[in-house]
């Protein structure tokens, strides 16, 4: 009973249903682990008492034979997803004391399926970043270290707290959100599985908006199967989000372990620029070999507009953010800094409440939407977005999935923060195209660098082909036999 925190949900559920352990045992161990891993700063706010109470309720359900699909699943929730009565900050000073009066649909569905929320996890402020260093509550720490080195590493971001706690065994799974790579990139840097679903598969209701045409919530877990179980429960149409698709969610677990023999895997040449980290390139080649060994056919493809995806993203995302973040004005909720006039109150509140990176993006977004700049920047970027998307449409006429690295590098040290904004934005180079096109993608850990840090590969699929992604991801998981912390 000592290592319940190291088990996948599949293994744990067997023990729970056979009544060899209780949900209270499980949650108690997770609560203890959360205390041990406090230095990771993965959680902004913990709700351990509530979790233990819910564990007792879950045990009653199991006793009475009415266990739900995720009964007793210890879940961490990114702190930009509202949960009624649980402080939700988006890691921003401006929302430091915000207690939502309602729950995000994706969280509600997971709770209704039996998941138990342990706490709210740290992120880059309003999900704007790739490291959690822009969080008002300070960065989270990656549970992995360089071999023979004690220096703290960043977990990636923006879902850095979610990835850190799943990798560090202080949560079994977590909710993340992905606007330009914010689920997949931290999952890769922390050696866990991260799935960004098709745009519209999961409701955005109750998720603090960053860029509404790009944002999508998804699971971060230690196994592909756990990701498939969580996604199955959170996906599906929600009348409260008009952009959520009317779609019958399949049982993703059926795709696990299915043969990929004869299926076609595209390798985009644009994702192998000169100077790509040699170790990441080598693990990419190794993953390609696993695909061949499993009977898949490998095809070189081109996504010619890849290099334009990032600059287009850095117009579209700030533009949408500047509009979405206009609501933080010090009147209805959040921080308020008094001012002599209403305009003065707005400006003082926003100036004090937002951090530097958020201000920078609001100002960029305001600029590209302003009179005289709108057509030249915003509309141009949206037209380039269509070109990026068309590249994928063409590619999927030839291949079933696309395989590429998730990140260009392994985790970097806290304090070695990238201060050049362009270098920082380049962290997202392998992930943003997928968001622009609204496609699903899954990052799976494949191995460790020579320094001992996790490396992830991602499969990108056509819209609503999550099943296919789980199918390929499970093949890689089998081949890689990646050992996470405590495994």
């Amino acid at each position, binding site marked *: 009973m000592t290592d319940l925190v190291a088990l996948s949900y599949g293994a744990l559920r067997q023990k729970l249903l056979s009544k060899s352990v209780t949900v209270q045992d499980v949650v108690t161990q997770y609560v203890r682990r959360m205390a041990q891993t406090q230095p990771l700063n993965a959680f902004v706010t913990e709700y351990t008492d509530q979790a233990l109470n819910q564990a007792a309720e879950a045990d009653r359900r199991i006793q009475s034979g009415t266990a739900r699909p995720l009964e007793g699943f210890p879940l961490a929730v990114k702190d930009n997803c509202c949960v009624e009565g649980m402080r939700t900050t988006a890691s921003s000073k401006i929302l430091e004391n915000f207690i939502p*009066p309602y729950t995000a649909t994706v969280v509600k569905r997971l709770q209704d399926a039996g998941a138990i929320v342990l706490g709210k996890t740290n992120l880059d402020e309003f999900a704007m970043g790739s490291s959690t260093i822009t969080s008002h509550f300070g960065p989270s720490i990656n549970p992995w270290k360089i071999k023979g080195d004690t220096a703290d590493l960043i977990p990636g971001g923006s879902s850095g707290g979610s990835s850190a706690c799943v990798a560090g065994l202080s949560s079994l799974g977590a909710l993340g959100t992905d606007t330009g790579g914010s689920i997949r990139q931290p999952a890769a840097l922390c050696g866990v599985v991260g799935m960004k679903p098709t745009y519209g598969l999961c409701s955005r209701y109750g998720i603090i908006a960053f860029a509404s045409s790009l944002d999508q919530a998804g699971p971060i877990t230690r196994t592909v199967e756990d990701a498939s179980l969580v996604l199955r429960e959170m996906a599906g149409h929600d009348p409260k989000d008009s952009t959520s*698709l009317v779609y019958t969610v399949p049982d993703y677990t059926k795709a696990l372990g299915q043969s990929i023999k004869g299926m076609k895997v595209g390798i985009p040449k644009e994702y192998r620029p000169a100077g790509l980290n040699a170790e990441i390139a080598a693990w990419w080649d190794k993953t390609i070999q696993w695909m061949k060994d499993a009977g898949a056919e490998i095809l070189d493809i081109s996504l010619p507009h890849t290099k*334009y995806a990032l600059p287009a993203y850095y117009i579209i995302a700030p533009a949408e953010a500047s509009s979405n973040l206009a609501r933080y004005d010090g009147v209805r909720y959040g921080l308020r800094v008094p001012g002599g006039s209403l305009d003065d109150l707005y400006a003082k509140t926003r100036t004090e409440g937002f951090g530097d990176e958020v201000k920078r993006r609001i100002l960029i977004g305001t600029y590209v939407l302003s009179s005289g700049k709108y057509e030249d920047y915003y509309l141009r970027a949206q037209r380039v*977005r269509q070109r990026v998307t068309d590249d994928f449409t063409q590619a999927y006429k030839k291949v079933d999935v696309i395989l590429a690295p998730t990140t260009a590098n392994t985790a970097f040290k806290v304090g070695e923060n990238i201060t050049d904004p362009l270098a920082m934005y380049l962290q997202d180079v392998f992930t943003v195209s997928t968001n622009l*096109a609204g496609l699903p993608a899954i990052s799976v850990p494949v191995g460790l660098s020579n320094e001992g840090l996790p490396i992830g590969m991602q499969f990108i699929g056509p819209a609503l082909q999550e099943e296919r992604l789980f199918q390929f991801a499970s093949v890689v998981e089998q081949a890689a036999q990646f050992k996470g912390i405590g495994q």
Partner: protein
Amino acid sequence: MEIKKQDILRIERLARLTLPEDQRQGFSERLTKVFGWIDQLREVDIEGVTPMVTPLLQMGIQTTPLRHDTINDGDCLDKILANAPEAQHGSFTVPKVVE
């Protein structure tokens, strides 16, 4: 393209944000650099391409579902005002806006 200090002042006003005076010069240089990089978008042939506002159209979704026009929420004034920084008489309060 150079983003000048006067541009910064204009967007600060539009965004209801105030940068400290000693940061404006640095920010204008930073933005000039970012937009210099963004300007590579001019290389892309976008002739005849419709701006893409949402991925849903790519999936053949032309219209989003409508809800019945019925009241399904309400009577939650206290819950809403609980988060208000200042409230009086069941309303949010703001500085006087009408003389």
